[in-house]
């Protein structure tokens, strides 16, 4: 028996010398130290041996087993080192540029519109749309701005060259998204909760802060018992979600012919924190929204009884949001379509 143990020992050591790979080392371990290996069988059969032999063989076999286990561990270390060594030799220059992926991007106006709409959609608003070429009726009259109304001066209008048989020129490029309010109220009965994103046009010379084409998002909620307090809560929540929860909001009286009472909402300037700077024109506040309770005449004109229903409406410029958030200093960049600008968003 003893000789068998010695044979195992010498052939195991000899075989181990030949092992160069981790997989071969595992095979070696199974062969010499595995459950079915000779050595383990010998150890398992010790009980059947006479006492004297049992002691000698047992001691020897255990000694060999320990040696082999030690050699196995050593060999494993050795192999690990040499694998890493050879991997090291194949090392690459990780500083080389990666394979370029050609990424597309959304236009910043699209992104901002989506950001705004997503917030209102999460508050239960639905999206509505209307035509960009509109009737004067929807753009002005139905919004409580008859011809010669002084507030029309605030909407420099591009008129379409279309003359009716009676000699009027009633078609225009819509100057705001508010006509969508009328179109929605003409076709829908309360409860109404919609937002209407879209492009609008003004007869205006362009400069760093003026563009003749821009985008707005309009909002409208009409039902029984909708109040100015609801308007305040809804739009303050919107402002905080868009500009951050620490923003303060200012709620002040303003005038738009199609709402009464009228409101303007401003947030405290995030550049100077309200102390006054160039961004906020030294006022500490940045105007972001015009709003108000839908004027009773506007509701009545759409066949909604203002004695029963009330509602609020709001509108905001879309480009203004990225302009403020990212410090863009020239609105003309939006529709100049220089990729060096567009790729930043």
């Amino acid at each position, binding site marked *: 028996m003893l000789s068998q143990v010695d044979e195992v020992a010498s052939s195991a050591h000899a075989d181990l010398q030949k092992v160069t790979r981790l997989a071969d080392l595992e095979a070696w371990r199974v062969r010499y130290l595995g459950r079915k290996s000779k050595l383990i069988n010998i150890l398992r059969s010790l009980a059947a041996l006479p006492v004297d032999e049992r002691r000698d063989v047992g001691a020897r076999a255990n000694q060999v087993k320990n040696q082999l286990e030690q050699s196995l561990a050593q060999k494993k270390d050795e192999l690990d080192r040499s694998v890493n060594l050879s991997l090291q030799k194949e090392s690459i220059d990780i500083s080389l540029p990666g394979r370029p992926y050609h990424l597309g991007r959304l236009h910043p106006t699209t992104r901002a519109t989506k950001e705004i709409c997503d917030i209102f959609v999460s508050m239960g608003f639905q999206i509505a749309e209307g035509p*960009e070429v509109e009737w004067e009726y929807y753009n002005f009259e139905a919004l409580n701005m008859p011809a010669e109304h002084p507030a029309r001066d605030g909407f420099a209008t591009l008129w379409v060259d*279309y003359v009716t048989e009676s000699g009027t020129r009633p078609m225009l490029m819509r100057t705001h998204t508010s006509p969508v309010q009328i179109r929605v109220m003409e076709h829908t009965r309360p409860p109404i*909760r919609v937002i209407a994103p879209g492009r609008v046009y003004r007869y205006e010379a362009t400069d760093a802060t003026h563009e003749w084409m821009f985008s707005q998002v309009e909002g409208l909620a009409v039902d029984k018992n*909708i109040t100015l307090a609801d308007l305040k809560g*809804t739009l303050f929540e919107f402002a905080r979600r868009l500009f951050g929860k620490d923003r303060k909001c200012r709620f002040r009286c303003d005038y738009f012919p199609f709402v009464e009472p009228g409101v303007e909402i401003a947030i405290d300037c995030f550049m100077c924190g309200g102390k006054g700077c160039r961004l906020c024109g030294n006022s500490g506040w940045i105007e972001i929204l015009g709003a108000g*309770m839908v004027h009773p005449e506007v509701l009545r004109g759409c066949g909604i009884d203002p004695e029963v229903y009330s509602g609020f409406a709001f509108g905001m410029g879309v480009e203004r949001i990225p302009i403020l958030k990212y410090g863009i200093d020239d609105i003309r960049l939006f529709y100049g379509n220089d*990729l060096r600008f567009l790729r930043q968003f």
Partner: protein
Amino acid sequence: MKAPLKWLKDYVDIDIPYRELAYKLTLAGLEVSDIKVIGGSWDNVVVGQITAVNPHPNADRLRLATVDLGQKQMTVVCGAPNLAVGDKIAFAAVGAKLLDGHTGQLTELKPAKIRGVASEGMVCSEKELGISDNHEGILVLPPDLEVGKALSDYLADIIFDIDITPNRADCLSIMGIAREVAAITGKEFRLPDLSYKESGKEIGSYAAVEIKAPDLCPRYCASVIDGIKIGPSPKWMQDRLLACGMRPISNIVDVTNYVMLEFGQPLHAFDYREIRGKKIIVRRAAEGEVMYTLDQVERKFSSDHLMIADAERAVAVAGIMGGLSSEVTPGTTVILLESANFNQAVIHKGSLNLKLSSEASTRFEKGLNPELALIALKRATQLMADLGGGSVAKGLIDVYPGKTEKKPVAISSSDTARLLGMDIKNDEIRKYLESLGLKCNPDAATGKILVEIPWWRNDIACTADLVEEVARVVGYDNIPTTTLSSSLPGGEGASMVTFRQEVRDILVACGFQEVITYPLTNLETLNKLSPDLNLTGPQPLAMANPMSRDLEFLRTSLRFGVLTVLARNQRNREENIRLFEMGKVFIPRAKDLPLENEMLCGLIDSVAPDAYWAGKAEMADFYSAKGAVEALLSRMGLQAVFQAGEDVTISPGKCAHIIVDGEKLGVIGEVHPRVRAGFDIQSPAFLFEIDMDKLKALCGGKQLIFKAVTKFPSTERDIALLIDIQVTYEKVAGIISGFPLVVGVRLFDLYAGEQIPAGKKSLAFRITYQAEDHTLTDEEVEAVQQKIVEKLAADFGAGLRS
């Protein structure tokens, strides 16, 4: 509207800090957009008196002034031409902060030696003190000021610049703003005294007024002041005019401007000698009537204009500008003073088409109340008699054909609760409204308050208007904040918005940059979309008042937008450009708004980026564009057929119509080289255009249905065919994929040229076989493959390439 704080204090006590007042006004709807503090930096500026003026020993144009400051005398070097002994002046000691007369920068006054003489301070101009832009000479102060006192005790002021909304023409006046201040600060409003002595002849002996267009002139009031002496107005009046941005002219003109600022009523002073026939007639202009206006321009009028005329001729354009002939001149001695009310629309239209806008016209076109005319006339008559001497004729002319009664408006706490979401008792509502000068009469029967609307508030006509008044006085800050509790609407909203976003996201994932271009262009640009520069199709809608020749027509195509953007960015040396725009094109319809057809247009340039270190970059081609369209349509669950076709913008032979379910959805192909050249694009470009409305309609009917994923393995076989060059890929692939067990066909090589017989090409396909219910055996696969080869041989004479 500029409102000096000191002037406001004439009519209302103000005891809160000016910044707080500005904030309260802003919240109440009168937005204070700027605050100018005059004298804020006058720490070392005092009133002085010039006691001696001596020549400068070393300079002809400089003089030495000795200034008495009460406690001490100082000597300063001064170049001002108007130094006069005895005058009270503003003296700045060393350390004072003044505006530099040339640079406008605030600078600290330092001790200085000027041409060898030490100057111990400075005698200031208005510009240096920030009072006005006048830097001609030094500011001469009124003689009653006390020497040695701080200048700010007398001259400092705060000037609010207030944006007045179009509904509040009454606040285009110091009086209107003072009323607001009184209401929001809980103070009393005081009207100035309007009395004066009438010592002249009966007014009827001077003139009579006739209104021939009562629809356009609801009221015309006038007074006459005889024996007036034209001269400058007093310093206090000039200061106030300057503070409000108006230039002082003479006592008479200044009074009209002063009262306009004070009450908001434009007035006009005529030289009575020039009024012929003792008659003022308010009438429409005769067609083609001409008159010189005060600005010395001869203008032509039409029946759209309202004129003030005497017995013979027009003497003013009503509410817009006076006529030159009746202008007040230094020799004027009798004044006929007009204070009238004109229809806002006629003034608005007139001012627009004469391109003539004045302080008067901007007030009239916002709508003034006729009641104001008489009040303002009394005030102006009083001031004119005061400042110009002369005697006021007995009585006033007052022709008032347009007198209207205002109906009272009802409000109660249920209205404020319903619209503001705030519980305000009737008593409180009454208190708030009365603070604005609105008279409240509780109506016991209805529990409502009947509110009499004062004449100056043209903007209040319904309950909602009163609710806003209550909210303004309560303070918008104090309105509660609640969330919407109304029920959610039914329906689904505009699904186009979501659909559009899906399409955009797919194109962005394919590497396309979204662009947005103007929908207005010129015909030349639209025509450039055709190689013969003559785009057929609908005639685009034109603007009636285009901003420029290049922004005249509404686009009927998106193509020129992306082509222009590509060219622009190529000039910036951008490469590998992929663009898309999604937007509307406008197709005219008879007697209706145009059809707004939503389109998608994509464009790829063929310029490959610089070679990448690990391999060569590929040039984009027709198939790059096609791949994007295929990716888009397959993501939308649609299978497109690309059919060789024609399109005006696209090269013949490199153009396909995109067909889904038999309907033409769009077009794809290489941009025609002449079109490309027209847009200044340097290299081949590939365009696709898809009708979004049709795409959405097609997607609407598609229901995605899950298909089980087979557990059994697939197997692949390659096949290389020699085939006639005319046989398209589509035909071959169609036949192969029609066989059972074939689940995939991929063309992995295409070759024509040497080693291939002329007129032939080699197509190499990798075919994937798979069964849903078992593992395929080699025999099964071979059998199908054999049949495929036979079928292709029979149909196209295709042979296997060895």
